[in-house]
């Protein structure tokens, strides 16, 4: 039996101190800014004060002469455009003639200390010619000129995507009910407490090492080689443990390229650490999304079809935006049975910091709309919203309308658990005025099926080295961002080899030493690294078993591994220590090492664009939120949250629970207060578009005083594609919380806030409307005309076809 299918565990499922726990509580974890090297210099960036302008001239003269300044760099040094996705190579490390948002870097100064570098930045003279500023997607649609970028669809439209899986209009036309809603989800940012930092240094051979707070060292390695026009073999990227990532450290950041160039030019180490204001400018966070959802329902509450339209505010650059745009459309199908589905998506450029991936990447926004709309549907059909959902859950081992392959689904149990725990049946619609309960569900990827650049190589690799002392060292490119990837790696290897996880030595996130793992994003690490680790450990185990069997004079199949011993399964007294087994194996086979790797299964969809959405497995979550609304002030507080997450298999319950509760925390911030908002300065101050809150104090997030009690339930429906069945837990649990809050507010005071965040002013406005006898709703009123293209038509699996596009006139024949 393969290790993957094992069901009794020595390490997995037990609450344990994480393997890197001691370093984190002693202050010994080395974050990027904790690295100090001899002769190290410091760098600061001069950033644009204008949201959209051409640079007429840059004169660094006086800055370069300031004592203590070693180097001034401008855009001339960086002629090569870069971008994290191959399709959006639209950024320059320092502006190449044009700036596109307030905060876009223009020049860099390297000096003996930060103070001098700051002072020198102010001496650089930049002349700008201001351009019209585009503030919103609506403005972007209405203002094709000036173009923020020359690439993209046209004007200031970056991306248009349109897909139809079965004839949705026909499905809606024959539905007993059709619901149409427009929702808005404001952008927000990751706000990791660690500010991005990077240290670059040439080594003795003149090769470059970059230490950085990055979630994706492999992608940085590739992109850096291109941006610096340097041999990748001469670049080593080390991902330091991140002080929180949440998706915000997934891009190749401009400062990483500039600091690398500076270190190479000067032949000595250079460090940059962004200040908090700059972290807000770096952003790459949640896209603001306006959505329209049309959903058909039978009278018994089954979905017949759904048409989703999204309009994204992308900010000033492409970043991950093409993928984000797809993600606003592709995952609506994996939670509930949905016979036909259509989505149109549009991302626009605006003169704001670029948006990108944040926890849930592109899916929390439509999830909010979908789950609030379901609440409205349940009310209209006079059904309990929990029962409505229970009646439509997608089937395990099935295909969705858009050809995604679903494996295990524990959603029914998740719903039943939160319903029971919250005493839903006795309390929903029965709490006193001002207090209410809301329910919602969600589903998420366990790793994106495809890498961001096209290849069929493994997406994760693990290498194991056995020392004759019995020491096991694991090498993997996976990156510890706080989520516990190191602990997962050690736990899985220990489980297979029957050793203590604390005895595994780990070398991770270092492109100079470790096999490629694509990085800590898309909730991929447990599944992909975990599968690679099992393969590597099983290969070593086979060698150890063979050598031990020879000594014990038994067959290798009867050799067992447990608690640091290798022994005869039928007579455990007959055996040896793990270290002794290693000595026998090294004597027999020579130096011991093994590699394992993982490639996700090929996705069934074959149409162009089918690459976004497939995953080896999907996680599922259900959540009930209790809300208390103060009708005098509009203030919403959340006393308690019940959440159940189908994790497949729990590796370390301490960490798993931490991911769920951390998701609830971040979700409540998005639901109630967090917003990356902008305002225009008055005309006499240039009329520029500036960040409203580039500070931790003004960007409101929950403190310990705002955080409710959370009741977490881990539900285990192991998925055969996953290591020991373990699915993701880092992102999925965020998804249902925001809509559950909105639904709870409706239960509490009977107003619909179809827009996030739900701030007190919106609640008060809705309450006023309700009191005046008007529609008690606050939210976007209309959806603009967007020039979506004719959709690519792909029949869903149950309507024939092979997962490929068909020309529309053929569709009838297939149906």
């Amino acid at each position, binding site marked *: 039996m393969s290790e993957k299918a094992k069901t009794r565990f020595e390490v997995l499922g037990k609450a344990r101190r994480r393997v890197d726990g001691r370093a984190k509580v002693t202050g010994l974890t080395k974050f990027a*800014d904790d690295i100090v090297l001899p002769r190290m210099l410091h760098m600061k960036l001069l950033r644009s004060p204008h949201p959209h302008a051409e640079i007429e001239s840059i004169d660094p003269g006086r800055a370069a002469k300031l004592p203590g300044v070693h180097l001034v760099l401008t855009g001339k040094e960086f002629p090569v455009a870069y971008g994290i996705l191959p399709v959006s190579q639209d950024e320059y490390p320092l502006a190449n003639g044009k700036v596109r948002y307030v905060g876009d870097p223009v020049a860099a100064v390297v000096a003996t200390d930060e103070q001098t570098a700051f002072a020198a930045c102010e001496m650089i003279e930049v002349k700008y010619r201001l351009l019209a500023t585009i503030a919103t997607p609506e403005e972007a649609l209405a203002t094709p000129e000036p173009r923020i970028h020359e690439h993209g669809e046209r004007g200031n439209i970056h991306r248009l995507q349109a897909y139809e899986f079965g004839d949705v209009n026909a499905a809606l036309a024959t539905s007993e009910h059709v619901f149409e809603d427009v929702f808005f989800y404001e952008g927000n940012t990751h706000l990791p407490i660690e500010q991005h930092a990077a240290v670059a240094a040439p080594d003795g051979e003149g090769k470059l090492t970059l230490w950085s707070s990055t979630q994706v060292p492999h992608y940085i390695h590739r992109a850096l080689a291109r941006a610096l026009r340097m041999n990748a073999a001469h670049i080593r990227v080390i991902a330091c443990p991140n002080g929180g990532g949440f998706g915000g450290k997934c891009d190749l950041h401009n400062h990483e390229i500039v600091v690398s160039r500076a270190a190479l030019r000067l032949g000595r180490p250079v460090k940059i650490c962004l200040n908090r204001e700059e972290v807000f400018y770096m952003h790459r966070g949640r896209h603001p999304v306006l959505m329209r959802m049309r959903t058909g329902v039978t009278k018994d509450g089954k979905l017949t079809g759904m048409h989703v339209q999204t309009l994204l505010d992308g900010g000033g650059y492409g970043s991950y935006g093409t993928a984000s745009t797809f993600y606003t459309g592709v995952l609506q199908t994996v939670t509930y049975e949905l016979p036909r589905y259509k989505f149109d998506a549009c991302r626009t450029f605006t003169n704001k910091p670029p948006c990108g991936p944040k926890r849930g990447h592109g899916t929390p926004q439509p999830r909010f709309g979908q789950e609030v709309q379901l609440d409205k549907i349940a009310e209209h059909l006079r059904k309990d919203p929990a029962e409505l959902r229970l009646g439509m859950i997608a089937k395990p081992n099935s295909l969705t309308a858009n050809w995604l392959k679903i494996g295990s689904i524990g959603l029914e149990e998740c719903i039943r658990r939160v319903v029971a725990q919250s005493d839903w049946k006795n309390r929903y619609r029965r709490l006193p005025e001002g207090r209410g309960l809301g329910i919602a569900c969600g589903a998420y990827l366990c790793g994106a099926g495809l890498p961001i650049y096209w290849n069929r190589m493994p997406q994760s690799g693990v290498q194991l080295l056995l020392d004759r002392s019995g020491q096991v060292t694991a090498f993997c490119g996976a990156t510890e961002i706080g989520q516990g990837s190191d602990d997962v790696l050690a736990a899985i290897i220990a489980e297979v080899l029957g050793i203590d996880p604390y005895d595994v030595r780990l070398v991770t996130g270092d492109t100079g030493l470790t096999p490629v793992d694509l990085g800590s994003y898309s909730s991929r690490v447990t599944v992909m690294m975990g599968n690679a680790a099992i393969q590597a450990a099983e290969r070593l185990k086979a060698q150890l078993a063979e050598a031990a069997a020879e000594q014990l004079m038994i067959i290798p199949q009867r050799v067992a591994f447990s608690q640091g011993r290798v022994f005869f399964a039928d007579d455990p007294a007959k055996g040896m220590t793990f270290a002794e087994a290693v000595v026998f194996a090294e004597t027999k086979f020579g130096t011991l090492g093994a590699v394992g790797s993982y490639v996700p299964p090929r996705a069934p969809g074959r149409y162009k664009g089918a690459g976004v959405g497939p995953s080896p497995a999907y996680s599922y979550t259900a959540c009930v939120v209790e809300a208390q609304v103060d009708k005098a002030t509009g203030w919403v507080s959340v006393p308690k949250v019940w959440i159940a997450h189908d994790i497949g298999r729990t590796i370390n319950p301490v960490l798993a629970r931490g991911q769920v509760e951390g998701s609830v925390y971040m979700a409540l911030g998005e639901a109630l207060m967090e917003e990356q908002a902008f305002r225009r300065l008055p005309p006499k101050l240039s009329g520029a578009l500036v960040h409203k809150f580039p500070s931790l104090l003004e960007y409101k997030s929950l403190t310990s005083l705002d955080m409710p009690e*959370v009741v977490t339930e881990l539900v285990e429906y192991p998925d055969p594609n996953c290591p020991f069945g373990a699915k993701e837990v880092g992102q999925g649990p965020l998804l249902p919380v925001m809509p559950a809050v909105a639904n709870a507010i409706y239960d509490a005071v009977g107003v619909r806030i179809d827009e996030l965040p739900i701030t007190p002013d919106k609640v008060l406005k809705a309450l006023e409307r309700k009191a005046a006898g008007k529609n008690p709703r606050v939210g976007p009123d209309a959806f603009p005309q967007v020039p979506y293209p004719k959709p690519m038509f792909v029949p869903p699996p149950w309507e024939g076809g092979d997962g490929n596009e068909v020309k529309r006139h053929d569709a009838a024949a297939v149906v």
Partner: protein
Amino acid sequence: MNRMRMTLRVNGEEQEVLFHSYKTLLEVLREELGLTGTKHGCELGECGACAVLVDGTPVLSCLELALECEGRAVETVEGLQQGADLHPLQAAFADLGGAQCGYCTPGILMTAKALLEKEPHPSRERIREAISGNLCRCTGYQQIYESIEEAAKRMREAA
């Protein structure tokens, strides 16, 4: 620029340090003394990551001039463990998920230490209040409360 020479007492050890007079305690700890266990998240007194104890009271070291700390007892995360033994707070945070990414952890540990020294048996409500100036983006705080409660219990039992 003028540099100051001063004796700082950090974690019970007196150290002579030479620094620019504008430097904050945070900067002197991290940059002059190499005590990088104390973190920074804003340098504006907004996040609590840089909290250390000065004469037993939590202060935001990013807002405190090092100059003002002469003759006062400064405690940082590096001073928590005794020899090889973790402080009960450190052990509980490591065991119970109080530290995820670990970046806000030193500031919270020091804040919690000050709380438990004054109140060996704090209520959940008091713990929430005590750490309300320390932002954590990872945990959702529950496992932090549980870690502090567990440490308080272990400390009472040991006392």
